[in-house]
């Protein structure tokens, strides 16, 4: 079982977002970066499948600035075998990113191409399906369960009110949702071993974005609310306010 996992370096979910002076990006001061949380599920799935099969390789591909190599190193520490950095500035737009990833992946042989279902920075949630279309591969998105037997796969995909059962054959693209597995933490042995694993760096040039980022702004601060009161005694006033003032009941 050979798998490729595409990962992204993103600001940690505890980051307080501050827009930079150009109003098109984040002010990097104080931002802590991490492996995109959904990519952890994708990576864990790849490593488990390799361990279960006792054979195969797990290749991680990260597209982004040079510092992405740190994130790739942590993926190697979790148990991936080799890493590729597609070095570029990255983009707010999914289409050029998907094109660059598809171009890199097109020449590779693999059984499973895994992604996190979305990156928690731009929240585009589009690159996995786009890459699948560009490569002409079956694709299941937002997957919380995956059974593979031979070349046949059955995925459980999270939808409103339940799960869809999706059947396809390998090679295929799967995007991982929380719940697929319980990702491991890298241990010291893994961290040491990761230093010796191959990490190839390639410069890539992204196509022009299909969407121009005109402006990034912080959402308006919430209007000051009010404490209606304390304890159960405040309930009638709360309900009256919800009905008469806010008109939502």
């Amino acid at each position, binding site marked *: 079982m050979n798998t490729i996992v595409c990962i992204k370096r993103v600001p940690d979910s505890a980051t307080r977002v501050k827009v930079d002076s150009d109003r098109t990006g984040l002010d990097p001061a104080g931002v802590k970066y991490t492996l995109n949380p959904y990519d952890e599920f994708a990576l864990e799935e790849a490593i488990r499948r390799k361990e279960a099969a006792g054979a195969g390789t797990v290749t991680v591909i990260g597209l982004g600035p040079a510092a992405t190599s740190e994130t790739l190193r942590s993926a190697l520490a979790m148990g991936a075998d080799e890493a590729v950095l597609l070095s570029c500035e990255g983009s707010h737009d999914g289409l050029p990113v998907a094109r660059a990833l598809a171009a890199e992946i097109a020449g590779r042989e693999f059984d499973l191409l895994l992604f996190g279902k979305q990156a928690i920075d731009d929240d585009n949630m589009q690159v996995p*399906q786009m890459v699948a279309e560009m490569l002409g591969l079956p694709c299941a998105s937002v997957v919380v369960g995956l059974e593979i037997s031979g070349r046949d796969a059955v995925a459980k995909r999270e939808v409103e009110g339940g799960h869809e059962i999706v059947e396809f054959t390998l090679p295929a693209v799967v995007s991982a949702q929380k719940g697929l597995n319980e990702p491991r933490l890298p241990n010291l042995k893994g961290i040491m071993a990761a230093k010796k694993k191959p990490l190839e760096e390639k410069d890539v040039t992204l196509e022009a974005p299909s969407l121009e980022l005109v402006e990034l702004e912080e959402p308006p601060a919430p209007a000051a609310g009010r404490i209606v009161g304390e304890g159960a005694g405040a309930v009638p006033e709360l309900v009256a306010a919800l009905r008469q003032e806010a008109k939502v009941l």
Partner: protein
Amino acid sequence: MADVLAFAEIRDGQVGKAARETVSAARTLANDLGGAVHVVALGGAGTAGAAGGLGEFGADRIMVAEDAAYELYQPDAATAAVVSTVKSGEYAAVLFPASAQGKDLAPRVAGRLGSGLATEVTAVATEGGSITVKRPMYAGKAIATLRFAAAPALMTVRANVFPAEERPGAGAVEQVPGIEGASRVRVTGFEASERDQLDVTEASVVVAGGRGMQDPENWTLLEDLVEALGDEATLGASRAVVDAGWRPHAEQVGQTGKTVSPNLYFAVGISGAIQHLAGMRTAKVIVAINRDADAPIFNVADYGVVGDLFEIVPALAEEVRRVRQDG
């Protein structure tokens, strides 16, 4: 190049809020551009009748592919249907709902057409023929304004943001032939969740519980409040209680869960970690119930009640029932 295409989501043979909101958003955009609204729908027998009702929400031309094979959402058939429709017309924009179907489908269509896609769009505007949109990034901690470089402008529109308005269009229904091309994936079944409840992204009222609930068994209190609030209400949860295994991930609101924009959001025993606030701050009205008067959740709440939730929540359910009965 002024027409707008809308993908009408059919679920369980029904046209729901997602389809009506998408068509309404398409109507608004088409009016700005001076074009017509076309609709594509795929479903089993009876879909033409169900989708025909979208004429009342502004659809001029409704193209329906009816086939028993489409009773469940089939991604490849839907992709082929939308792509071939886009290629046969001159569309300025293609709109999808930001639902499980729409979020799966729109990137497939974008990838095949090589067109740009903006997801979870919360506002659409036109200026000099070009289309700009607003969409949240960083789970709503920032709002991006994006301008499409070329047509068609593909987008998924966030639930509860574009209201379904009755503005009749021509509403002409036509059956289109089955979709050619092999399916790479087959959706073969649907497993309903154990609890039959509205998804947290779809509900107009959300009652979310956090660690302050103390024990998963105490959720009966929140279930009772949901019941009192009616059919449009559902349960939500903080990451802490999902990670603790008290509640399913499907209920999680926040940056690694779902982003919701209901009319009314109750945060019960939720302190208000930044990653939770990111997922619910666009709710129209936020009510916080917490023992700690200094909890950050009170900074975003429109109304707060400080105190013991185990006393407040049952009293609230009772009062809601009383006023709803009185009308």
